[in-house]
């Protein structure tokens, strides 16, 4: 273990990897701060750049965007009541109240410290458990992998906010788009309609940029209210009082525990973790009467939770090859493009990459702590850039990024098509993240499904005869029952409210 950590530190501290880590967390922080561009859009915008660097540097940078955005997301939540990322939406509740009470500096400080502690605990858990989990996963066969992916996809779709049916439907659409191209088993072209460019499948970059980057601009343009930060944050205003610190600390620990757990499950990510943590704080915080009116726990708990989840989310992605959310799916896709196959064998076959990544997380979190406390004023001033200057830049970046991967105008048209699809999906309230999850996992889902059933000679009993597969199936049933139960309770409460 010690040897591995030293190896990882050597990789992470090499000049080039360090620079990519710095670049990743800076971009992550930047887009996290700006409301309206999420980590999905940023990662897809930077994917093209990674084709020119080593796989380790690429993944270090893309991962940095992901957890960097978790830090940055809370800044706009606290100052403007506009979440920079979905997982920091819940921080608006108490964070913005603190700003209105003149405690913006303290809220930002607590959120940075909570993020750092949460992230650190997440990294420790990842270091300890990832090798064990990959040992167990070595015994998995096709039926287990199929069930695991099904669990991940179903859990991600049903546990996220919004309608479960809509998310599940989008997972299925994603799988269909994912299997476009040459079917390797039979050599048949599927859904390509004679376009040779589609032989290798739909372009991941073009689809992600279209669905997240372009469609975002398409729906914001012409109806964006321009809110601009006015709060000034000085270093002195950031120091919390002793009571505030004493109240926040237990919330940070509770949030880290919740976040580590939800992040590590396949199919649940940082958004669920932060909402769950807020619910727990609502019940158990010392200032629970003050929740929603500017309680520090309401910032500390969810911020610790989403950052620890952002780190432990790498456990299922790297050890099982099953991403927890759409951002992880995109990272998984990037690794596959770079010829690295995440899965149980990755830790032993690519130790430099795995341990280098783990150590880069420490480095990245440390850089982010510096960004968030002494340098916070710089990021706050970013909130003054008006959207009318920002969106033309986003459009051009998306265009050049998509084109330059394969120097292909065809990919620009793919981008256009996915942008329109994403825009229509927004109008119909059909969520895009489950689609990307399905798109990345689609080919693997089909392959494992086919293999399982050809192993069993066509009998579906193979999924219940094997103990691990059966356990996973029971978990899927549990998730579905839990979700329907919660929906039922909500419906009853709504009914009661209507009557009274």
């Amino acid at each position, binding site marked *: 273990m010690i040897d591995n950590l030293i190896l990882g530190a050597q990789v992470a501290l090499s000049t080039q990897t360090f620079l990519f880590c710095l670049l990743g967390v800076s971009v992550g922080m930047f887009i996290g701060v700006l409301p309206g561009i999420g980590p999905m859009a940023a990662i897809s915008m930077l994917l093209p750049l990674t084709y020119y660097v080593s796989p380790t540097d690429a993944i270090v940078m893309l991962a940095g965007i992901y957890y960097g955005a978790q830090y940055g997301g809370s800044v706009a939540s606290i100052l403007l009541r506009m979440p920079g990322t979905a997982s920091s939406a819940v921080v608006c509740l108490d964070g913005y109240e603190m700003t209105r009470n003149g405690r913006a500096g303290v809220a930002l400080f607590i959120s940075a410290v909570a993020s750092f502690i949460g992230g650190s605990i997440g990294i420790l858990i990842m270091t300890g458990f990832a090798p064990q989990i990959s040992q167990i996963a070595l015994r998995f066969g096709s039926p287990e992998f199929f069930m695991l992916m099904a669990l991940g996809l179903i859990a991600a779709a049903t546990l996220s906010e919004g309608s479960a049916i*809509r998310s599940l*439907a989008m997972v299925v659409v994603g799988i269909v788009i994912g299997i476009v191209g040459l079917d390797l088993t039979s050599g048949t072209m599927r859904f390509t309609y004679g376009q040779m460019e589609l032989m290798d499948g739909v372009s991941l970059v073009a689809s992600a940029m279209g669905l997240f980057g372009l469609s975002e601009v398409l729906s914001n343009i012409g109806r964006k209210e321009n809110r601009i930060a006015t709060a000034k944050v000085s270093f002195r205003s950031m120091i919390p009082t002793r009571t505030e610190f004493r109240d926040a600390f237990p919330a940070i620990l509770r949030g880290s525990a919740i976040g580590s757990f939800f992040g590590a499950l396949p199919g649940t990510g940082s958004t669920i973790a932060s909402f769950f943590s807020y619910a727990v704080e609502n019940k158990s915080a010392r200032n629970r009467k003050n929740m929603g009116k500017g309680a520090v726990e309401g910032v500390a708990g969810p911020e610790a939770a989403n950052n620890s989840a952002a780190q432990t989310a790498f456990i299922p992605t790297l050890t099982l090859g099953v991403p927890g959310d759409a951002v992880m799916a995109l990272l998984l896709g990037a690794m596959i493009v770079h010829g690295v196959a995440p899965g149980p064998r990755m830790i032993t076959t690519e130790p430099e990459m795995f341990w280098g990544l783990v150590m880069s997380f420490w480095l990245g979190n440390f850089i982010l702590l510096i960004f968030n406390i002494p340098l916070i004023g710089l990021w706050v001033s970013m909130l003054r850039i008006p959207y009318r200057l920002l969106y*033309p830049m986003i*459009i051009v970046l998306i265009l050049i990024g998509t*084109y330059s991967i394969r120097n292909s105008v065809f990919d620009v048209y793919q981008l*256009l098509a996915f942008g329109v699809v994403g825009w229509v999906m927004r109008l119909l309230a*059909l969520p895009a993240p489950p689609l990307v999850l399905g798109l990345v996992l689609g080919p693997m889902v089909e392959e494992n499904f086919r293999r399982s059933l*050809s192993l069993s000679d066509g009998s579906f009993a193979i999924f219940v005869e094997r103990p691990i597969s059966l356990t996973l199936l029971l978990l899927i049933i549990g998730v579905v029952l839990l979700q329907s139960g919660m929906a039922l309770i909500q419906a009853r409460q709504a009914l009661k409210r209507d009557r009274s």
Partner: protein
Amino acid sequence: MAQFFTRTRFLYRLTSRGSLSGLTLIAVSAVVILEASRMPFGSTSQMGPGYFPTALGVILAVFGLVLLVEGWRTPEARVTPGPLGPPALLLTAIVAFAVLYEIVGGFIAIIVVTLIAAMAEPGRKMVEWLLLPLAICFGIWLIFGLALDLQFKFLPPGLMR
């Protein structure tokens, strides 16, 4: 136009957000099943290329029906597209890039894209019209040309040797 859809109760229910989502999914599933039916189906133990897509298409149709029923029951949720002009301008800008890039090179294509895109949000000062395209060209050249050294053609093909 909007009044037409709310004139009768049938049309009102049929154009709710849920119903439109359901109908869209059903249409997608029809395309998927139709296309998959042209490929060999195989058997469960020896799946052909059409097996899995057909299964997905059927599942999708079921989800579509559920959403259609849901939308029929709660027609209050509507689709609110907002003004269509600005998104149309942005899409035009992208097509312009795709068409122009190989003819006039990256710089001119980027300037055209920026100008068309900028029209989507009116009320700009003259300085912005001039400086924004130039600033974006410079930034893109810095990242993609200087730092990454990509195979990206900035100048018109005629000017290059």
